[in-house]
């Protein structure tokens, strides 16, 4: 089960729940402590999520925003190049 957690092993709650269940079966005195640890872990996870940047929007929205920004930068760069290389004076052939 823990292997299916993927890359977020540090935030997986299954190991702790498993320990609690085993402690309950074996009537271990550490069950209450484990339960407290589980609660603390939930709280830590919530705090960490609150502090993570860039997750205030969905993934699709973020991809759209980044694409728009890339286009903006490209357009502005091209515009600047165009006006800097523009020949302001065209002398008439007379």
């Amino acid at each position, binding site marked *: 089960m823990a292997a299916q957690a993927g890359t977020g092993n540090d935030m997986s709650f299954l190991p702790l729940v498993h320990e609690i269940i085993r402690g309950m079966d074996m009537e271990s005195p550490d069950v209450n402590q484990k339960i407290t640890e589980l609660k603390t872990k939930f709280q830590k996870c919530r705090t960490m999520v*609150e502090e993570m940047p860039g997750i205030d929007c969905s993934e699709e929205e973020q991809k759209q925003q980044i694409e728009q920004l890339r286009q903006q930068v490209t357009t502005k760069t091209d515009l600047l190049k165009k006006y800097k290389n523009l020949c302001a004076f065209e002398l008439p052939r007379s």
Partner: protein
Amino acid sequence: MAGAMSTKSRIVETLDDLELISRELIELLAASKQQRGSGGGDSGEEQQMLELLIEKDEALQELLKTAREQGERHKEMMELQTQAEKRDQDIRQLQKQLKEAEHILAQALYQAKEKLKSVNKANEGGAGAISSEELIRYARHISASHSVAAPVNWAPGDPRRPYPQDIEMRCGILGRLSKLPMNGHTPLPEAGTPGMVMLTSQHSTAGANTVQDGMGASQSSLSWQPSADLSSGVSTSANHTGEISVEIGKKENDDDVEVMSTDSSSSSSSDSN
């Protein structure tokens, strides 16, 4: 699950579900343990809860992975925003410079057009056209006798002035009006002194005009200081009959202006008594 929900809200929701499930599972296990002691218990429900817990945990892991990717993308977005702001700044700067250049060019264009108008106005119409030679000649004439600028070697304290001074006026025709003879006879000019005009008291004022006419339009009878190339000196002299003669002649002088009348060495004037 709505697609418009932000990743943060989905993670928080999943966490809440996970917490709820794990709490219920623990309570269920605790209750079932007590029931096992009394000979009962339903493990089917526990199994379902466990499966749900695993499912939610997997979903949470996926969401956290997405959140990390979004975090990386967010850094890239910040860099792109910085670049966009820099471009904006460059565009604003370029706009300001173009505005300035436009203003300067507009001014230059306006002034050039005004000058062209003046040139065209000067060129059009034959009657109104004035030749440059004539202009230069006129300018030279009016600036003769150092009337517009002091001589090169003039310094404060130099008695020379561009106007006739007191003593020169006294030595002139007007100053000697009272001493003019009353016989009305105008003697002829002496030989060897061409251009000499003699005046009498009767024609003193008219004579002054005559002198002026005789000298021509380019000379003035009251030119007190000779110019470089065209100088005329008017000196008064009284002959033995008491008549005042006005001697007019051209002198070829240097650029230095000589003081008329007061300097007896340079003129032939001589006071009568």
